[in-house]
């Protein structure tokens, strides 16, 4: 049985990075509760096209929760009110009939608005470029058991590696801090023998880049962890602090 709802949307519209933005209100009727949030926005854009109005710009790509492109700050939460999902996996059944839904872009100095709901998350790429890699030629695929790695370490590294770099942590943080992202990217390598060799250099370079790009200082509120669609834990932040301080004290 398909159920439909009527909703009111208040969506942030902004012509360009320098332009002053404002909310615009849209009515949508008969939205299927089975449709995803992005499908609902597609329907709205179709409607705007038929009315010869400019469509709403928002980021999206894979629509299956793994690419990290979708964003949107919905009703007080990055990726909306549902737990542990990205906006593309958020469904309209999470909203009530007649509800007003406020949709905003990520707000942070590190993520300037490009247009409407789309922000520039290039800062994350710059942080990765600063050190989020292993700079040795690894050759062909090695034998799975050639380097022994404990199950706990492997699990921790995998949990950190589940970060898709969407930026919800920064969007949720009252300090606009990118610590959870950087912590995940440092942890996923620092925990494994291949990545450990460059752990010091990596932690220092990535933190320096993060600071340079204007992200804030972590105050351990844990908002990032609760909004992370991939449930990345703030224990990785403790590891980043540890790696960074160890590296600095060694110098």
């Amino acid at each position, binding site marked *: 049985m398909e159920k439909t709802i009527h909703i009111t949307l208040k969506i942030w519209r902004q012509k360009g990075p320098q332009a002053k933005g404002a909310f615009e209100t849209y009515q949508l009727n008969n939205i299927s509760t089975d449709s995803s949030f992005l499908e609902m926005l597609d329907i709205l854009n179709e409607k705007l096209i038929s009315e010869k109005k400019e469509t709403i710009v928002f980021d999206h790509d894979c629509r299956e929760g793994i690419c990290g492109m979708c964003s949107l700050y919905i009703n007080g*939460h990055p990726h909306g009110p549902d737990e542990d999902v990205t906006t593309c996996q958020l469904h309209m059944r999470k909203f009530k009939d007649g509800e007003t839904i406020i949709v905003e872009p990520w707000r942070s100095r590190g993520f300037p608005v490009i247009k409407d709901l789309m922000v520039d998350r290039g800062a994350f790429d710059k942080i990765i470029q600063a050190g989020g890699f292993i700079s040795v030629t690894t050759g062909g695929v090695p034998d799975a058991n050639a380097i022994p790695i404990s199950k706990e370490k492997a699990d921790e590294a995998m949990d950190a590696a589940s970060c898709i770099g969407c930026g919800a942590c920064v969007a949720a943080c009252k300090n606009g801090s990118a*610590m959870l992202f950087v912590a995940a990217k440092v942890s996923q390598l620092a925990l494994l023998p291949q990545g450990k060799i460059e752990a010091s250099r990596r932690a220092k370079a990535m933190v320096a880049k993060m600071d340079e790009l204007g992200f*804030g*200082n972590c105050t*351990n509120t844990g*908002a990032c962890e609760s909004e992370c669609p991939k449930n990345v*834990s703030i224990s990785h932040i403790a590891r980043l602090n540890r790696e960074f301080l160890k590296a600095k004290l060694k110098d």
Partner: protein
Amino acid sequence: MKLFIINSSIGRKLIMSLSGLFLFLFLTLHCFLNMFLLGGPSAYTAVNDIMELPVVTIMVPILAAGFVIHILYALWLYWQNYRARGEVGYASGKKSETTSWAARNMVILGLVVLLFIVLHLTQFWAKMQLQSFLGGANQVHADQSYDLVANQFRNPIVSVLYIIWYWVLWFHLTHGFWSAFQTIGIDNKKWQPRLQIIGIVYATILAVCFTSINLYFLFGFGA
């Protein structure tokens, strides 16, 4: 090293963390010594004789530096974080779940605590240690200090304000304790809930002890 305690976010946080833990130690000592008030004038006078030793005098500027560094770094970090948030706020508010209410309001809680510290210093420190630095003419000495405390704390307005202060401080400490360890990097999935509970228990012990002293005098006990 190149002054990473100034130039890097984690370095700045390290200073907040270490100065915070230092103040924790001070508070513990302060609380322990104050508990002798419940033992009557002679017990408290004995403790205050220790407070007039030179070693304590040396510690005064170090302690003051601990406070000043903690407060200045807090304001500096707050200003940076304020700027990092960007110019436009969220119209739909911030509804993210956080580790605690205190975690989101450390600066406000800290400023309230600071206001009370000023009051507290004018009521006691200015009449005792400060006078000895100024030459000692008007100093309230160890043997009169019990009466000074008793007189102040028998005033209901003063005592109620103090008790409010202790519990504002309680909020500040509950987040501050585990947060300090998280920042130093001595934390993981297993220890995070443990440190959070230890922090709450620790802060509660301190607040209850301080509160008991005020209630003791407020209800007319003591010499």
